[in-house]
């Protein structure tokens, strides 16, 4: 289905975002704004903190505002008592709920500006088709990606160049917000089918192949803990992996310790992960962490009923509750 240009106009989004930020700062509703700005390269739209209304011109909304701004709220709250405004995509908004459910965020200290999201572009996929150095800008118009490559303008079908996580996104519209920046978009077709496709592919392997597959992945892990640091579900004040007494995780680079880390990290987000994919995006070693997180989501859904984290901050995550007639994944005889 062809989406109309006016349905998802990035330029107007940006204008609206700047306007909201400016008003909020000028009216002193908030003392700072967290959003995205453009950096040096076409694929970079990192998170930015602004305090001066004059700076709002830096804010952008483009195909690369991928980064989740949510985890910065923890630092903000720790360091100052003032109210902050934050722009969130659908996935980011579930991170807000994640922090609320974990009682790590005081709702009244955050103004949430929801940005309905048409999906973000995958720079890797673009680089594979176009010479990176010649790309000047990338924008999304409807269902088309428009690239300025050298002197030409290229128009391609956006779906082929979106992030995998966006193709399987079930909640492109923010689920919690004080103000919505634009009209809601409709969720992508086939999102449900692609959600567990990678998990199923790994599941179809035999035990030894699976082990070999994951060893290949984890061999690259340098235990930089970036996946943990960026994950809104990993919001403990002091992570067990950082503790010395008891020492839960060995410090040396032992493959068993790496496995320990990945098992326990995944276990700690089981029933709490809301599939923002930040862990996998940020991983410098390309470990497909979503395949692990989503496996647990799939397992919990199958055993204990469908549950999506980050939709309702008042419910209890699946591992915090039970039913007498629950099935077990082991021999109960």
């Amino acid at each position, binding site marked *: 289905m062809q989406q109309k240009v006016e349905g998802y106009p990035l330029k107007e989004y940006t204008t609206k975002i700047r306007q909201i930020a400016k008003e909020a700062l000028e009216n002193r509703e908030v003392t700072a704004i967290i959003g995205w700005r453009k950096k040096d390269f076409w694929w970079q739209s990192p998170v930015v903190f602004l305090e001066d209304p004059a700076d709002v011109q830096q804010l952008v909304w483009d195909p690369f505002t991928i980064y989740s701004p949510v985890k910065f709220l923890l630092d903000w709250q720790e360091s100052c008592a003032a109210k902050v405004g934050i722009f969130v995509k659908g996935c980011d908004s579930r991170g807000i709920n994640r922090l609320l459910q974990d009682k790590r965020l005081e709702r009244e200290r955050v103004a949430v500006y929801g940005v309905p999201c048409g999906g973000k572009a995958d720079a890797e996929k673009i680089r594979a088709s176009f010479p990176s150095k010649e790309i000047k800008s990338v924008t999304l118009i409807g269902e088309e990606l428009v690239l300025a490559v050298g002197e030409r303008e290229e128009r391609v079908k956006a779906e082929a160049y979106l992030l995998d996580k966006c193709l399987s996104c079930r909640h492109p519209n923010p689920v919690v917000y004080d103000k919505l920046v634009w009209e809601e978009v409709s969720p992508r077709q086939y999102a449900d089918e692609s959600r567990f496709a990678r998990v199923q592919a*790994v*599941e179809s392997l035999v*035990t*030894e*192949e*699976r*082990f*070999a*597959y*994951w*060893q290949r992945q984890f061999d690259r892990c340098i235990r930089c803990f970036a996946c943990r640091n960026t994950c809104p579900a990993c919001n403990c004040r002091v992570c*067990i992996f950082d503790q010395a007494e008891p020492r*839960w995780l*060995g410090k*040396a680079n*032992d*493959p*068993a*310790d790496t*496995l*320990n880390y*990945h*098992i*326990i990290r*995944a*276990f700690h987000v*089981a*029933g709490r992960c809301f599939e923002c994919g930040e862990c996998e995006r940020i991983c410098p070693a390309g470990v497909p962490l979503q395949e*692990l997180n989503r*496996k*647990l989501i799939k*397992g*919990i859904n199958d*055993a*204990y009923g469908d549950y999506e984290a980050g939709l309702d901050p008042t419910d209890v995550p*699946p*591992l915090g509750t*039970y*039913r*007498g007639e*629950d*099935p*077990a*994944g*082991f*021999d*109960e005889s």
Partner: protein
Amino acid sequence: MPVTNEGFEPLIVAFCCNWCSYAGADLAGVSRMSYSSNVRIIRVPCSSRVNPSFIIRAFQRGADGVLVAGCHPGDCHYHSGNFFTRRRLTVLKQMMEYLGIEPERFQVRWISGSEGAKFAMVMNSVAEEIKRLGPNRKLRDVR
């Protein structure tokens, strides 16, 4: 290449809840039901006290199999502990199998304080399965 595990004596760590499975182990003893000496028991108040980190740690330190045993669902001394155990360890077990660890390596069973015979039988069958699998190399510390 056929794998022979002749002479392999596995190490199996069993976390037993104090009220049911540990009592079941005691009953097996009182009834002189012999079972594999490869099993070593750690007493915990409730199966819900067993942190997945303990299980992984046992494998890292060289356990060839880990068993968690608790009261039957509904019989928990602490009312609901084993219901949480069931969910947590189901998730952990699914994950370990997904990562390519043999399902037999990590097992969870319900054994009541009156099931001495079952305790002995389960220990023997677990020991047998682990013996057949051979040593744990996947989760063991290299150093």
